[in-house]
């Protein structure tokens, strides 16, 4: 009875652990051997031993006590804040005969990067994880865009359209303002505006009715006739 009670407590504890840390603990049988994951990172070297600019090698070594564990998958992640804090996958690698899983990383930005590795565990071995702060000092662009032959044209187009717009507005506002000023200045404010009669000769039309002679606009002197 006492063992049954202990089993229930253990089961609840395991379930709670599983809920808080993902499928790792849930997938780990009680009889599995505990494992340790060791994580390291360094600049990547080419076959000649030269440092490959902006590239890093991240290694995770999995062991259970003194025993190196091979043929196990290790998931590498990086903590990022893009679109909210989260762990972004860097990749998965399988441990070799030395118990080491390796990925190559080409960081996008300099500074401290929080890297984590996780072995999920299986029937024989319990899961384990490790973290590493990688100090990235230089980066190379992951993707080098080929400049579009039209890119410079686009800038010139924008500038040209901007200039055209400014010229257009200068003309519109200039013409409008000039017309308004001319209209106002041609006729100083006068309380009699619109009240003076225009005296024009009228006669009986030869076609019947009254006909009136209106002077053409150019012939008007601009001086209001006397009242």
């Amino acid at each position, binding site marked *: 009875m006492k063992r049954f009670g202990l089993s229930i407590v253990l089961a609840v504890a395991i379930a709670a652990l599983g809920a808080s840390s993902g499928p790792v603990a849930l997938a780990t049988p009680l009889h599995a051997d505990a494992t340790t994951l060791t994580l390291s990172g360094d600049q990547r070297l080419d076959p000649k031993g030269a440092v490959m600019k902006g590239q890093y090698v991240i290694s995770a070594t999995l062991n259970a006590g003194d025993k190196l564990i091979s043929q196990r998958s290790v998931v590498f992640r990086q903590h990022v804040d893009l679109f909210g804090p989260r762990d972004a996958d860097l990749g998965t690698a399988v441990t070799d005969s030395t118990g080491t899983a390796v990925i190559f990383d080409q960081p996008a930005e300099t500074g401290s990067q929080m890297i984590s590795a996780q072995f999920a565990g299986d029937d024989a071995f319990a899961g384990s994880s490790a973290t590493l702060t990688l100090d990235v000092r230089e980066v190379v662009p992951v993707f080098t865009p080929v400049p579009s032959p039209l890119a410079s044209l686009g800038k010139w187009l924008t500038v040209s359209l901007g200039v055209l717009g400014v010229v257009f507005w200068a003309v519109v506002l200039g013409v409008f303002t000039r017309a308004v000023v001319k209209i106002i200045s041609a006729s100083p404010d006068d309380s009699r505006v619109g009240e003076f009669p225009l005296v*024009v000769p009228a006669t009986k039309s030869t076609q019947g*009715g009254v*006909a009136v002679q209106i002077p053409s606009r150019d012939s008007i002197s601009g001086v209001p006739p006397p009242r």
Partner: protein
Amino acid sequence: MLRYPLPFLQDVHDAALRPHARSGWRFWGIAVVLALFICWGLVGYIIQLGSGLGAAGYSDTAFWGIYEANLIAFIGLSYGGALVSAILRLTHAKWRAPITRLAEAMAVFSLVVGMLFAVIHLGRPERIWRLVLTPQIDSPLVWDFVAIMSYLIVTIIFLYLPLIPDLAVMRDQRAGDRGLFARLYRIFAINWRGLPEQWRALNGATTTVAILIIPLAVSVHSVLSWAFAVTSRPGWHSTIFGPDFVVAALYSGVAAVILVVAGFRKGYRLDRYITLKHFQNLAFILLTLDLLYLYFTFTELLTEGYTMAEDVVPVVASLLVGEYAPYFWLFVGAAGILPLLLIAIPRTRTIRGIAVAAALTVAGMWLKRLLIVVPVVAHPLITGDWGSFNPTWIALSITLGAAAAIPLLLMLFFKFVPILAIGEMEEMAAEEEQVTAPSSTAEPLNVRGGVAQ
């Protein structure tokens, strides 16, 4: 010296100011009906604001629809009004005088109403300010914003300049009046006295603005088309979209001018000044644009469909023989064939026949704008499922409310400014109605008002 009968001068004056008289039951009846449509549209918009664009029939698979079609269609109407007036002015078409005021006013009000749809089609309209505060110069939507705002200001100037002499007439009529409107007339008439130097300044400015408004209007509709054409969506990514939009706007705009002119002619008994000749001249312009637009439509579909490109064929097929075929062929009939026949056949080339052709054109071209937007949006780019856009009563109410706003705004506007360009009318009449000059010993006669002062 120019001579023409005095009664004609007086008639022009009276006719231009006819809307200012006490309005009858017919005016108020129409105004109330139009206002009700607008109120109903406002109710729809308030509901849409609360519920989101889904209330108007928008969805993930139909992210653009009726409002975008309305934006293009209403701004297109404006384009026609401005261009008709500008081109007729620049070509010194003498018959233009009675219709320019109506065309210019329609250009302003249909543009204002059309611009509203740029806000209405946003789920979060308060974000429209981001276009101003954080503009992305690479975005065609920013180009649209700049082009439409520029066009609005120039259209208002284009309406205002020829209005100055007529505002002076209104000012003179209210001489001694200290009321608000009298004061406004005084301000906006800017001391106009019809002096030769004033006429020269005014005519020069009007001509320059008429010249400038043509490329501006072309650019507005080209930019509107680029909001579609610079995307890579099949059906929109077309080089002909710019000229196609310009011609479509001009076509529907001329039709709208005919409708407005016919409506106000009947409403204010302007038949003496706006005659069958005016309608026939406008109808011939409409006919030309009809043929041009049919040609553009044919060219677009032929070049896109002939290559049988995998991504374009479904869209073209949906238009010609598929889900949207009934609407497409309805457009061809209503805005293509029927107006063409009504204008081409002399027997139907009456004012009524031309007005019917114009009404069919306006309705058909609105449908065409919907067909530009919806089938392409509904065509999936990633998944295999076609979307669909079914406008709800809210979308239709807002559309009808906006359509009702244009005639109502025009009716109210002409309650305060002359409906005919008095100055131009008299100038044209003087040129048209020259009679034999009388002897210079004629008895003097006093004439008041109008440009002759």
